[in-house]
């Protein structure tokens, strides 16, 4: 036996079972004639790596997040079924271990074979390592060195050195002269993202990776998730940031800020600047995957447009100021307003993009220092109905389960969510689920990508979720598919609920929602009969006048079928912003403080007063839409906003702008000069998530550590530091320096489900709340009892939106707003990255039938008019929407889509009804306004 490359692990650490200490029933296989325990169903490679470490067997086509493939054969090992018996060479990566077999990972002939394979690979691979971007971080280089290649005996064959680099795309690059045909990129595209852009074309020596039908990255269907680039063992596929280059000073792990999935990122820093981003394979939330926003859209952070100094508006013009001047100005003004009008003339809007610590400090400042409960956050305009609805049904307004449960469920029900664009990494997991052929039900007015793969797509009219929910529940009850045991033991209010449901007029509901009742029946039965069914929903549920009602019906749907409290089930809101869960948890709500205690409850009121050592009001504050009303009525005089662009993203723009323009003091903490910032009286330049530390809580209640990657851009301060500074300035003493550690310590004392959360103990993957005193998190809620004791069935009937009742005669179309994968909300960040080269405009989706009716062709400007105003937007003709329905985004200020959206909002939570807007369309005479170049 020649030299061994692998080192045997110590028995204690690696669980090696020696001959004597072996359990009688343990299955073993022999590696180099020594017995090792075999796990059920594991491969030879996994067995060897488990006992001898990752480097024990060289591999090329194997990757941590991909299924075993067995194409490169470098992992081959010799296997005999009996000692001294005939030996066969097997690819270890995809061959299951046969218990009792004898494995020789480094036999002479295996070593020769590996060397030969690599030699053959090298006949078609340029040996220009010194100028290659992955030099010293190349798996081929590593394996070649590992198997001892000194020269290549074969003559140079037909090579692919003439292959041109593909530099067509905003982010992705390829140089297929470096390709070794390992299929990792193809599998990443198929198995991770499910985009099916890449494959192997041609045959023999001509085999080569194709993108679509031999097109470049730009013209292909690539969604730039970068999974292929990360999977590629060489530099054949990479990105413009050369993310596999070793030219970095350090890599910092942090959490993405672009949605509620909470992907972990590994950010490479060189010379104090961000160089590139990759996704750690071991991260629980994203296992090596991200979308293009997380991986590539970071260039905004040092964009020339970043605000770098405080600005104070004087005579209508912004004048540069020092931080001291700005603080003085604000403190003086706030004191003046508070003394003159009282604390309730002041309001704060915190940011669901900020950390838990910053949100906590903001609400503390507004409550304890300003003495008002006028504190809200952007959750108001997205998932506030989820929080209220689930609190009423279950007792807690948070996802009941974890994303990893997608692997364990038998059926997914996705309502009003387009996770492909909104939550791409979870979206890819849901898509993989649907592609696998398991039962998937999508309820959405648009034929989204997920809907195309789904078993059932209920393509309802916008605003009729309640009709569909009533129908589904009707069929479940009338077919006798309720889980009687669960209902009896764990819920209340069922009999009354049942009578309401059975009293529904199904034919009428069918006409309302426009979905065949038989299809609804089939979907309802499929959901009810699945052993484990898991529900997901997005803003298509909440941003309606009956948002909260729908949430309670969804909760009832889960309870009636017993789908709560175990793995692979539950009600799971796909939270929009990275910390929308956290901002509510931290008390950025006008009626609940940190930890969700009612501010009007005398017990908790007293508790908060003692904790903050301040006098607090014992009545609810204003929700965001109420703040606008109060400002228009001269009741609200000052407002402080962290990182939210209400002027672009809140509905009915004119109304919002009028309200904000009336304020005496309007402080905006921002990265960029947004539409809202333009209205401010003081602008404070903030630091981005890449420049600060703290924690974000993702959609599955996972509190994860955000670690500062680079120093704050000169002139900016983190929102947390600003809060600490202003509290100190106004005489409410806080430690001078914002540091998440002490803030988190304080939070853990007041928020019960943060009790055991400690900065140092969060680790890479964080912890899912509630975290008990011992620091143990919780991945599934309501396992034994509901948070509120018994789950409550609450029924409501479908009710037509006021918007349609009042306006549908004059405005017969319905427009519903949505998101594109490439842009985030108001686009302030993503429009300042190369994403804007990929998606350049807001577009209006319109059905071919409607387009024909108005003589509109693809790319025409269309004037969309609602009772509030009109906008011009470019048409995209597609059957993704039904006739009569339109859909558009609001990422670009050039369009200002929210000029037309309505002020109608959810009856309980006041979440605006972005999803149902009555409008009319005509071909526009207006000129196309090309968005300003921002990169």
């Amino acid at each position, binding site marked *: 036996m020649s030299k061994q490359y692998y080192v045997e692990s110590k028995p204690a650490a690696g669980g090696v079972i020696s001959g004597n200490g072996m359990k009688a029933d343990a299955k073993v296989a022999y590696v180099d004639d020594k017995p090792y325990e075999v796990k059920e169903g594991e491969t030879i490679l996994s067995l060897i790596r488990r006992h001898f470490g990752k480097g024990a067997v060289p591999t090329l086509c194997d990757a941590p997040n991909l299924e075993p493939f067995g194409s490169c054969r470098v992992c081959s090992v010799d296997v005999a079924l009996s000692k001294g018996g005939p030996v066969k060479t097997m690819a270890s990566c995809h061959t299951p271990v046969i218990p009792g077999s004898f494995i020789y990972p480094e036999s002479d002939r295996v070593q020769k074979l590996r060397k030969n394979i690599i030699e053959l690979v090298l006949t078609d691979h340029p040996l220009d390592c010194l100028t290659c971007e992955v030099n010293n971080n190349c798996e081929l280089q590593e394996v070649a060195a590992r198997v001892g290649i000194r020269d290549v005996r074969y003559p140079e064959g037909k090579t692919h050195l003439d292959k041109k680099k593909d530099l067509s795309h905003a982010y992705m690059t390829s140089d297929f002269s470096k390709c070794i045909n390992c299929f990792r990129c193809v599998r990443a595209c198929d198995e991770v993202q499910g985009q*099916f*852009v*890449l*494959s*192997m*074309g*041609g*045959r023999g020596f001509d085999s080569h990776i*194709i993108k*679509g*039908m*031999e097109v470049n990255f730009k013209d292909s269907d690539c969604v730039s998730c970068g999974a292929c680039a990360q999977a590629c063992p060489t530099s054949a596929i990479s990105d413009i940031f050369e993310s596999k280059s070793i030219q970095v000073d350090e890599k910092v792990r942090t959490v993405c800020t672009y949605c509620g999935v909470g992907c972990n990122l590994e950010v490479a820093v060189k010379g104090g600047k961000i160089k590139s981003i990759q996704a750690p394979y071991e991260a629980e939330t994203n296992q090596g995957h991200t979308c293009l926003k997380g991986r590539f859209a970071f260039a905004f952070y040092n964009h020339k447009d970043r605000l770098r100094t405080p600005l104070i508006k004087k005579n209508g013009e912004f004048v540069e100021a020092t931080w001291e001047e700005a603080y003085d100005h604000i403190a003086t003004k706030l004191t003046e307003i508070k003394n003159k009008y009282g604390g309730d003339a002041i309001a704060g809007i915190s940011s669901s993009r900020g950390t838990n610590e910053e949100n906590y400090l903001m609400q503390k400042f507004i409550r304890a220092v300003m003495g008002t409960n006028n504190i809200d956050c952007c959750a108001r305009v997205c998932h506030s109905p989820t929080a209220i609805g689930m609190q009423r049904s279950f007792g807690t307004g948070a996802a009941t389960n974890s994303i990893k449960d997608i692997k364990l469920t038998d059926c997914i029900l996705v309502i009003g969510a387009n996770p492909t664009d909104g939550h791409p990494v979870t979206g890819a997991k849901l898509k993989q689920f649907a592609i696998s052929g398991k039962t998937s039900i999508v309820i959405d007015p648009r034929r989204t990508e997920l809907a195309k793969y789904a078993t059932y797509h209920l393509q309802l009219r916008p605003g009729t979720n309640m009709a569909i929910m009533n129908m589904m529940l009707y069929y479940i009850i009338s077919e006798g598919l309720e889980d009687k045991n669960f209902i009896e033991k764990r819920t209340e209010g069922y009999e009354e609920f049942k009578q309401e449901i059975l009293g529904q007029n199904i034919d009428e509901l069918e006409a309302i929602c426009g979905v065949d009742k038989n299809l609804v029946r089939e979907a309802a039965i499929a959901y009810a009969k699945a052993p484990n069914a898991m529900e997901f929903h997005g803003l298509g549920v909440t941003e309606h006048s009956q948002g909260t009602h729908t949430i309670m019906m969804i909760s009832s749907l889960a309870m009636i079928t017993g789908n709560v409290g175990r793995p692979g089930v539950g009600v799971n809101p796909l939270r929009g912003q990275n910390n929308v869960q956290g901002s509510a948890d931290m008390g950025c709500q006008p009626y609940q403080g940190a930890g969700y205690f009612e501010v009007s409850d005398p017990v908790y009121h007293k508790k908060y007063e003692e904790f903050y050592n301040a006098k607090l009001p014992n009545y609810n504050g204003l929700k965001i839409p109420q703040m606008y009303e109060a400002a228009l009525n001269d009741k609200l005089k000052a407002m402080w906003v962290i990182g939210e662009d209400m002027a672009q993203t809140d509905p009915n723009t004119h109304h919002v702008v009028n309200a904000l323009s009336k304020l005496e003091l309007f402080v905006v903490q921002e990265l960029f000069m947004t539409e809202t910032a333009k209205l401010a009286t003081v602008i404070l330049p903030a630091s981005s998530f890449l420049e600060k530390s703290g924690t974000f809580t993702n959609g599955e209640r996972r509190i994860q550590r955000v670690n500062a990657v680079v120093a704050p851009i000169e002139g900016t301060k983190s929102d947390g530091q600003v809060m600490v500074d202003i509290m100190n300035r106004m005489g409410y003493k806080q430690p001078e320096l914002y540091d998440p550690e002490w803030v988190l310590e304080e939070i853990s004392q007041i928020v019960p489900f943060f009790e055991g959360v400690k900065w140092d103990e969060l680790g890479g993957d964080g912890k899912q709340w509630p975290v008990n005193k011992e620091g143990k998190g919780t991945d599934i809620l309501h396992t034994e009892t509901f948070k509120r004791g018994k789950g409550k069935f609450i029924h409501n009937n479908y009710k037509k939106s006021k918007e349609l009742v009042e306006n549908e005669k004059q405005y017969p179309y319905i427009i519903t707003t949505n998101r594109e994968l490439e842009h985030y909300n108001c686009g302030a960040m993503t429009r300042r990255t190369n994403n804007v080269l990929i998606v350049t405009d807001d577009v209006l989706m319109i059905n071919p039938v409607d387009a024909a009716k108005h003589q509109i062709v693809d790319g025409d400007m269309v004037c969309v008019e609602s009772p509030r105003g009109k906008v011009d937007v470019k048409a995209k003709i597609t059957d993704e929407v039904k006739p009569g329905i339109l859909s558009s985004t609001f990422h670009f200020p050039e369009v200002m889509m929210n000029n037309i959206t309505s002020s109608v909002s959810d009856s309980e939570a006041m979440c605006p009804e972005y999803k149902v807007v009555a409008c009319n369309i005509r071909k526009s005479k207006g000129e196309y306004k090309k968005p300003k170049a921002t990169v």
Partner: protein
Amino acid sequence: MIKFSEEKLNKVKEVMARYPEGKQKSALIPVLHMAQDEFGGWLDTPVMDYVAELLNILPIEVYEVATFYTMFNMKPVGKHLLEVCRTGPCMVNGCDDIIDHIKQKLGISEGETTPDGLFTLKPAECLGACGYAPMMQLGKTYREHLTKEKVDKLIDELRAQAKN
């Protein structure tokens, strides 16, 4: 508009019906042959996308198969497609000389089409006629025991045909 005739569509259905449900991808190669015959002798991307749609599979699944087999043309071809075998037995019997000769005579390289749109030269892998090497396939017939003279005669004949 790329669409099979009703008759051809029925044929597609018939081919698909030969395979178990959910295994309709098995019908890909026969359907690609039909598509190549129907839509100009080669497989343009929209044609392959149409096939994907018919079989309810992903476009990339069609591309990877179509590019693998030499009998599918991925570029427009001339009226006469000269598919010269270059696998072992034909090579031993001088197919390289034949290919070179055709190149010279037509002034084109492998895979190219003459400017008049008459001829495309395409080297092929084994066509199963090793006993008659060197050989080529022309349309639906084999031309065997090729010599330079035979090739000249053939090309001249086809040119003459085209003129008439």
